[in-house]
Structure formats: structure tokens, C-alpha cells
């Protein structure tokens, strides 16, 4: 009998309306564990080299992991991978909620999708069965409306829906996959890939709960969640959610402001988690936010998700579209010089309704605002919208125009890098992208190890791909569990910080493959320690994995992502940071004057490559490394890779 996983992977060919179930052996699950690594197995095997991201041949994998659906905090996560229409490199996005667990209960670990349906369809997975259903009547609906309609039609309020909104249908390059109308597999445009396939949604329902090999040990870990709550501070994290870090980021000089030109936002308190909790969450009038203003994922005790509601006024917002995370408060807020909380809540809801990544959307608008301030954009370009910093009404208006590809929104829907190519006039000077993906709200000038991770990460700038610098010194006991015992001074960008970056990247990469939450399992502040992640896997699976094996799964997935880019002709030349991070010192606050030194940074990048066993000149993984990770087949099965990897 198998534990944890269902043992069934569904292959969907939308062009031929064919569904086929594969049943891999246990070794497959132990090698990849799920999530991103499992998805990459199929993407590397089945996606042709040089594929257009909107081609029917671009394979989209939606994968849960070995712990998904077991009753423990942080396990209900799903990872999507495919070639990204935003970056032209590999795309990867994780999301939580109730959908991932329910997909497991429906009888499937993963869905591998290729082809393009001649008409809109949705995939209906229920009680071990799979079918494609007509979705013509759902096309064009917002996520909330489509979900309501599906629940009504299927006469079941407990279905879970992972879907694209109108933005995905319109191929907005940073459109997202949305579940529960407020959870997002946000980054790298996976919604646009699904939209290009005429696949509106995946709908799931089932009761096939995963078996647990060692229930006694599993119970111990469940109890630990309560014991760990206060010492880790996760109780406060649950209360204020990720928005609770807005003001601390400002005080540390690391709250990206005015399109990353400062780490200091004077109005930080207006967009902070306290303000959101006390004045905006549903139930705040009667001090009942804990009941009505917080939400959670399947079986998670933290309840970090926000539920905001605005009953009247120009930014009227329904509670079903959730509330903003820290990243969203920063990108639509401080990035744009905006402190109007209602406007940010509404922009967040628009992204969830239409299905867009709030990070790329807010950051693209912030880039356009800087272009405006610098005189590179005028009313003529924007169709009469005054796109200056601080203009909340303009920000909200342009967000909706992007989703609909209306007016100037048509250009911004391409993402800031492609928009800069279209507009020209030196607007690329203001980009904050790596590999064409807009930077999230953690500043590489302040957390220096992130400067290399943002650049070298195979799917573009990302803040969840490694631990951040302060964690090394603050969590010595946990860092020791993964072999890190030599914390460095603030702002250090030396070999030891590259070792910290790489090892914690391997752990984060494992987290995204096991497909668990980065706030629950990780190397620093999280609810569970790295060692407790190992224990959770062994309790569920009946295996005897150790930390080394877990880190190797993470390293395996990282090299799979990297090898995908290598075969697409993407190597070291694309491992870059926005020019402004080297040229323009930050202004104001605790990070006043901070700027990266290009020479020091290039040396650090090369140290990182050497630690990874990647070629310093090309940035490609070595054949020796690939083979040591059991990935010799990736190179052997691909002529292009055989030429570039040696």
C-alpha cells in the first residue's frame, strides 16, 4: 500500500481530448517528492526545445506533494511549472488554500497538461474519475462568478476550483492561477499558459484521504505545532499576517519605495499590518477580526490569510476576494508611493477577480510611474491617465485596464521589460526585473545574498527561493541543522554568504518540491524546523530520509530548472540584476546610500556558480553535477543539452 500519495498522475491532451492515468513506482516519488521537481520531470521530457510559451506543445504541470492532504499545518500547496510567457525561461509558481488537499482527495497527485482545446473546457476530477467538460459559458467570467456558477451546476458547495480569470484568457503575461477566488499561483504567468490552452479551470472533489505510515509519530508533530507557536512568533504572524512586516521592513531600510529607489516609506504605517488588522479586516468594527477577518489553508492552524471588505465608495470590495499580503501592500503601495489602504485592497481584489500576479502587476505600474516622473511617458501614452507616484485612483484604473488589455493596459500587460522594449526612450533604465520578472518586495541592496539569488534564480527574481540574510545570525540552532555555522556581518557578500544562499536555496527548493508552505517549514522563523520536516516525511511515508536526502531533492529540482534554461539558450548572460541597483544609491532612512558594487557582486556570483558546480563562463550545470543528482537522462535525452552541458 502507498502512503501519502495516490499513485496516480493524470496526463491530459487537450488537442485530442485524451485523458490517461500513469501510475509511477515508489522510487519516482522518493526521487522527486512532488511539486516543482515532479513537474519538471515531465516538462523536461515532453516540452520541445524552443517552444513558444503559448504553443499547445508547452507542457503545464500542476503537482501536489507527498504530504499534501495530511492533517498537519502547511501541507496544502500546489506547484505549477511550464515555460513562462513573462520571462521566456522556465516558469514556476506555488499556491495554497484548500484546492491542493482536495485535489489529492479527488484521487490524483498531479495533472500534466498539453495541447490546446478547440473550445473552452474545464477538467473535472472527482472520486478517482477525470473528465473534460464544456466551459464556453464560463469564459469571460471573473473568478468569483465562475466559481459560484460551477458550485451551482455541480450542486456541490465543497468543490475546489483552480482557474484562470479574464486576464489569463487575455494572455496577460503575468496572469495567475486562482483558487478560492483569493489564492494565487501568482508568478511567471502560469495563468496565461493555461489560458492559451483554452482550459478555464480544474475542478476537484473527493474523499480519498492519504494514508499515514506512522500515525503516532505524526500525532507528535501535530502537537508540536501548538508548542512551537509562541517561541517561533507564529502566533503573531497569524494575527497580523505577512502585512505585519511592512513597518519593520521600513525601519530596517528595506521597504521598496518609489520603484526601488528608496527603502524608506514615510507613510509605512498607513499600509502596515496593524492598520489593516485594526481598521480594515472584516469584523474589525466589533473587534471580531479573528473570526471574520482571518482565513487559512486546509488543516493549517496559523490562519495568516487576510479577509478585507469595503462596503461602499469607489473601492467597494467583496470579502470573497481576500485581502492583501505584504508583497501586495508593497507593490501597489510603497513601490507606487501610495498609502491609500482601500485602494490597495481593491487593486488586490481586482487581481484575484481577473487572475493576475499582484507583484508583477504592482511593480509594472510602479515602473510606469517612474517613467512618468522622468518625463518618458505622457498623457498621450497613457490615454489621459496621470500616472504619477501616489495617484491611487490611476493605479486602480490601470490595474483593471491591464486585465482587460484596454488602452495603455495593453502595453503594461506585456510586463515591464517587454513594455520598455515597446516604448523605448530609455525606459529600460527604470526596470527592476531579473530575467524579465519584476522584483518582489525584499531589497538586494539591504539583504545582499538575495542579490545573487534574484539574478541566478532560474525563474527570475524571487524572494521565496532562499532564506534572507538576517536569518543566518538570528537562528543559529536551526541553521546548524543544515550545516551553516558561520554567520556573517550585515551586508557581507562573501563566499560564506554564498554558501548560506545556496544551501538555504536547496532547502527552499525541497520545500517547493515536497510542496509545503515556506512559512511552516524552513530554515529560520518557520513553525517547524528543517529536522521536523524530515520527521514529517518519514512519519507519513514510512521512509528513512535524512536531511542530506532532502537537500539533494532541492538541489535536483534547482538543476532541473537550470537545465531547462540551458537548453533554451539561457545561461550566465541572463543572470543579471537591474542596472539601477549598481548605479543609484538608495535615498533616505536606514539604507540611505546603499548601492551594490558590480565588481564585488560579479565575484560573489562566480563563487555561487562554483559552489553549485555550474560552469563559471556559461552558467550551465556541469554533466558531473547532473549525473550525481540522477539527472543524466535530462542531458542524454536532449541533443541541445548534450552540446551545452559537459
Amino acid at each position, binding site marked *: 500500500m502507498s502512503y501519502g500519495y495516490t499513485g496516480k498522475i493524470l496526463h491530459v491532451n487537450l488537442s485530442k481530448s485524451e485523458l490517461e492515468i500513469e501510475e509511477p513506482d515508489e522510487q519516482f516519488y522518493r526521487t522527486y517528492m512532488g511539486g516543482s521537481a515532479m513537474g519538471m520531470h515531465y516538462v523536461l521530457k515532453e516540452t520541445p526545445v524552443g517552444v513558444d510559451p503559448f504553443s499547445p506543445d508547452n507542457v503545464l504541470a500542476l503537482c501536489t506533494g507527498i504530504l499534501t492532504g495530511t492533517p498537519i499545518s502547511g501541507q496544502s500547496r500546489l506547484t505549477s511549472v511550464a515555460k513562462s510567457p513573462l520571462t521566456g525561461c522556465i516558469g514556476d509558481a506555488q499556491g495554497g488554500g484548500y484546492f491542493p488537499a482536495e485535489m489529492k482527495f479527488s484521487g490524483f497527485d498531479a495533472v500534466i497538461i498539453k495541447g490546446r482545446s478547440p473550445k473552452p473546457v474545464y477538467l473535472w476530477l472527482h472520486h478517482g474519475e477525470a473528465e473534460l467538460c464544456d466551459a464556453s459559458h464560463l469564459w469571460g467570467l471573473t473568478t468569483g462568478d465562475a466559481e459560484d456558477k460551477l458550485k451551482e451546476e455541480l450542486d456541490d458547495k465543497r468543490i475546489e476550483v483552480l482557474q484562470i480569470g479574464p486576464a489569463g484568457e487575455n494572455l496577460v503575461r503575468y496572469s495567475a492561477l486562482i483558487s478560492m477566488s483569493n489564492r494565487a499561483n501568482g508568478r511567471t504567468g502560469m495563468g496565461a499558459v493555461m489560458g492559451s490552452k483554452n482550459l478555464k479551470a480544474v475542478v476537484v472533489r473527493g474523499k480519498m484521504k492519504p494514508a499515514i505510515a506512522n500515525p503516532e509519530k505524526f500525532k507528535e508533530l501535530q502537537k508540536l505545532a501548538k508548542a512551537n507557536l*509562541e*517561541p*517561533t*512568533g507564529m*502566533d*503573531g*504572524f497569524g*494575527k*497580523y499576517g*505577512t502585512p*505585519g*512586516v511592512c*513597518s*519593520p521592513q521600513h*525601519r*530596517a531600510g528595506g521597504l521598496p519605495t518609489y520603484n526601488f529607489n528608496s527603502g524608506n516609506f514615510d507613510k509605512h*504605517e498607513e499600509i*502596515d*499590518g*496593524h492598520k489593516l488588522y485594526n481598521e480594515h479586516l472584516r469584523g474589525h468594527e466589533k473587534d471580531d477580526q479573528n473570526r471574520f477577518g482571518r482565513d487559512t489553508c486546509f488543516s493549517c492552524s496559523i490562519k495568516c490569510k487576510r479577509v478585507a471588505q469595503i462596503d461602499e465608495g469607489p473601492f467597494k470590495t467583496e470579502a470573497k476576494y481576500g485581502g492583501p*499580503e*505584504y*508583497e501586495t501592500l*508593497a507593490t501597489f503601495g510603497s513601490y507606487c508611493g501610495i498609502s491609500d489602504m482601500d485602494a490597495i485592497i481593491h487593486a488586490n481584489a481586482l487581481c484575484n477577480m481577473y487572475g493576475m500576479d499582484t507583484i508583477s502587476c504592482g511593480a509594472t505600474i510602479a515602473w510606469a510611474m517612474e517613467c512618468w516622473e522622468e518625463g518618458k511617458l505622457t498623457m498621450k501614452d497613457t490615454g489621459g491617465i496621470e500616472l504619477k507616484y501616489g495617484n491611487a485612483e490611476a493605479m486602480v484604473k490601470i490595474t483593471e485596464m491591464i486585465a482587460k488589455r484596454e488602452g495603455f493596459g495593453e502595453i503594461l500587460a506585456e510586463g515591464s521589460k517587454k513594455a520598455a522594449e515597446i516604448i523605448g526612450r530609455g525606459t529600460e533604465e527604470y526596470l527592476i526585473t531579473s530575467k524579465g520578472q519584476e522584483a*518582489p*518586495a*525584499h531589497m538586494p541592496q539591504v539583504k545582499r545574498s538575495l542579490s545573487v539569488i534574484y539574478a541566478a534564480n532560474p525563474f527570475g527574481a524571487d*524572494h*521565496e527561493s532562499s*532564506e*534572507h540574510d*538576517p*536569518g543566518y*545570525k*538570528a*537562528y543559529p540552532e536551526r541553521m546548524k541543522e543544515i550545516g551553516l555555522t558561520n554567520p556573517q*556581518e*550585515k551586508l557581507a557578500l562573501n563566499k560564506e554568504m554564498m554558501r548560506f544562499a545556496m544551501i538555504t536555496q536547496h532547502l527552499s527548493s525541497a520545500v517547493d518540491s515536497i510542496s509545503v508552505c*515556506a*512559512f511552516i517549514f*524552513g530554515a*529560520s*522563523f518557520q513553525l517547524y524546523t528543517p529536522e521536523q520536516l524530515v520527521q514529517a516525511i518519514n512519519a507519513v511515508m514510512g521512509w528513512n530520509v535524512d536531511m542530506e536526502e532532502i537537500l539533494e531533492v532541492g538541489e535536483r529540482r534547482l538543476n532541473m530548472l537550470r537545465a531547462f534554461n540551458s537548453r533554451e539558450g539561457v545561461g550566465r548572460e541572463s543572470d543579471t540584476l537591474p542596472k539601477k541597483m549598481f548605479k543609484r544609491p538608495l535615498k533616505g532612512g*536606514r539604507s540611505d546610500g546603499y548601492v551594490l558594487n558590480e565588481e564585488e557582486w560579479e565575484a560573489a556570483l562566480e563563487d555561487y556558480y562554483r559552489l553549485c558546480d555550474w560552469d563559471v563562463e556559461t552558467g550551465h550545470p556541469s554533466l558531473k553535477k547532473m549525473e550525481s543528482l540522477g539527472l543524466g537522462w535530462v542531458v542524454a535525452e536532449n541533443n541541445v543539452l548534450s552540446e551545452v552541458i559537459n
Partner: protein
Amino acid sequence: MGPLVDFLPDSDKGKATMILNNDSTITDMLDKLQIKRKVVVAVNGDEEKGLDHVLSDGDEVLVFTVISGG
């Protein structure tokens, strides 16, 4: 303001003035606030002070939680 504000006795937008005994350390200050979780502390902007650093009259101490995501 982060979750730590809830630990301040008379919080005023995330700031409070504290009276400590002579030779009190950062650990003593955190104990008085009943902050048991892991934090990063900066004394007058300097993040390199250890938890056994002795505070002086007039020191400004910033206390951060460490969250690497969002």
C-alpha cells in the same frame, strides 16, 4: 508595525520608552517585555551587538522579527 507591538506596555505607533536597571542587557530588556521569540536587535542602528550587550541611558533599540517572505 509587526506583531511585536503587542508586547509594548504603552505602545504609541510602535515606540515605547523603558526604564531599566543599571547594567541591563538586551536580554534583560526582552525579558521585561516578555518577548520570548527570536528577534533581530539594532542598538542605535548597530545590528552587530550581541544579546548580552549592556544598554546605556538614551539608547534607541529597534527590535525586528525575521520573516523572509511575504
